[in-house]
């Protein structure tokens, strides 16, 4: 059993904070009559992540969860809002400040078959961050690489140094990706769907590595996924995101066992019952046929919410409000 850090145990000041973040994508009008569209990827998102916790951001495709991760790691810039790491605002970082920032915040990508350069050996891949940040001594670099490879379970590490990605299995590649991230000993790591391309038994290995990382190196982890079950296993707190809006945040076990938002309830209904076929109690909050709504007005889940109240939910957008001390929901009727 791994230790569960509650909010009381970890420090009260957040290590990462998103303040009112919004991001839009506009597709250009094409020659063939497609009028340009603006898609709201993230809609005024605010959240706090505390040091040493594993925080889960759970949503389906198109929910904006990957975008949130990319904004934090500065692969893209938000359209509005601010991001804070410890106390410094990182939204406008450039140049040296940006490079120093990269020492502290890293990302594990989803596809282990694409996130390693096929032309580069494992040694070069894992040692590259050290080279970039000028850890000059060749011996020191090699030692760090070997140590990190061992810590992600690639043993004996010497065997892997001169291999290339195509010689490794998916699980091994993902471990190399984790090693590349951990070799710099960052403070904050985003894991963007790290196991969606891997088989179940390999995924389990990766989950356990992530837990170990948190234990031994005191790293704070943002776990982005579509799987509530994986989030329950790994995360201290879970946030559920729907079409760019945070709909529920709370302690992992609470969100799973006592979900308050109709969308979270719909998600839990939809997850395969895993053997508990007799307990067919379901929340039944999902509307099969989508309701007509006007764009941008009202609750984002209104078009699919069976328990919505027509007048209020279609006109007003609910904000996250605390329902008890650690559980917040964006719903008028939760």
């Amino acid at each position, binding site marked *: 059993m791994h230790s569960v850090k509650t909010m009381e145990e970890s420090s009260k000041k957040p290590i990462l904070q998103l303040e009112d973040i919004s991001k839009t994508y506009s597709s250009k009008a094409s020659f063939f009559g497609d009028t340009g569209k603006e898609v709201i990827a993230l809609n005024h998102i605010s959240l706090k992540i505390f040091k040493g916790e594993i925080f889960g951001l759970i949503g389906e495709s198109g929910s904006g969860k990957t975008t949130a991760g990319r904004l934090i*790691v*500065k*692969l893209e810039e938000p359209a509005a809002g601010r991001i804070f790491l410890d106390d410094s605002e990182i939204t406008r970082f450039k140049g040296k400040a*940006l*490079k120093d920032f*990269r*020492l502290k915040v*890293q*990302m594990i*990508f*989803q*596809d282990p078959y*694409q*996130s*390693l*350069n*096929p*032309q*580069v050996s494992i040694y070069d891949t894992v040692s*590259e*961050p050290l080279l*970039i*940040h000028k850890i000059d001594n060749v011996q020191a670099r090699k030692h760090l690489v070997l140590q990190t490879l061992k810590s992600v379970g690639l043993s004996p590490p010497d065997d892997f140094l001169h291999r*290339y*990605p*195509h*010689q*490794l*299995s*998916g*699980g*091994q590649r993902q471990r190399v*990706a984790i090693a*590349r991230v951990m070799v*710099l000993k960052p403070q904050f790591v985003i894991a963007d769907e790290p196991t969606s391309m891997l088989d179940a038994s390999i995924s389990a290995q990766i989950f356990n590595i992530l837990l170990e990382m948190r234990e031994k190196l005191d790293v704070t982890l943002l776990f982005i996924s579509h799987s509530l079950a994986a989030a329950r296993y790994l995360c201290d707190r879970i946030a559920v995101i729907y079409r760019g809006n945070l709909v529920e945040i709370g302690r992992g076990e609470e969100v799973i066992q006592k979900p308050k938002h109709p969308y979270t309830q719909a998600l839990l209904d939809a997850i395969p019952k895993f053997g508990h076929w007799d307990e067919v109690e379901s929340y039944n909050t999902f509307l099969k046929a989508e309701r007509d709504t006007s764009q941008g007005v009202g609750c984002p889940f209104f078009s699919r919410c069976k328990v919505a109240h027509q007048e209020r939910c279609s006109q007003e957008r609910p904000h996250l409000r605390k329902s008890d001390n650690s559980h917040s929901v964006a719903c008028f009727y939760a």
Partner: protein
Amino acid sequence: MSMEKPNKKHLNRFPWIARFLRGWAIYKQNILGKIGLTLLVMFGLMALCSFIPPLIDPMYQPMIGVDPEISCSTGPSIKHWLGTDFMGRDILSQLLAGARVAFMVGVSAAFMSIVLGTTIGMIAGYMGKFIDTLLMRLADMIMVMPTLLVVLILAALFGQLNIWTIVLIIALFRWPGVSRVIRAQTLSLKQRPFIEATKVAGASHVRIIFRHIMPNILPLAFLYMTFRVTSAIITEAALAFLGFGDPSTVSWGMMLQWVWKTGHMFKAPYWLLPPGICISLITLSFYMLGRAMDEVLDPRLRNEEQAG
């Protein structure tokens, strides 16, 4: 095990040596590559040996050496292994000189157009937006111009062209094709997660372009280079055959021109066939070389042991 260590230390100091030896081991396994390389070595020897005949006897000079006793085209003999051309010049020395010219022209033109095309393609692909548009429209304009025609016009305007001018023109007209392909490859690479991962690790643009994008592009660039060599050799041969080559340079195309112009096409197979066969074989061997090198440079194409 103690034998391993000294070797490894030695290799680690010069990683290029290790990489080259590894590459060679892979290359050796490819049959096409071995045939291609053998042929090229043969042509290379021919090119090197082109200096020998004139040293033996001035009559073996490819351009100006004339056999005092022969003044017409004759068949193979002891003195002239492939016979003589219409002026009494030795065909074998011409063939050897032609090999030298083929390498010079082929490799220089290809190299120049690849360097130009790759650089422009990478910059256009990576920078995008205005620079990309500008460079690609330039490429479009050049691509539509027919090389041969332009050279003919230039020859008509400025008289007979020097061989190096021809090389330069071939290079200047052939880079657009390369740059389009390189640009497309760069564009698709730019989006790949491993490039993003390097950005997240803090890499600069320069590092990304030269350490990550270029090595993934090099196989393509090399492959194109081998095609460019073949096309450069054939272009030069075509120009020479049509009479627009450098008259002071003996190339295989020039030899074919002489055969044709002097009406010996069907009368002197010992004169007609060698240059023709050489052109075909050298282009084939460069192609085979390109295919084998592709396997070396792209780890995924190798037939190696895979785990799992």
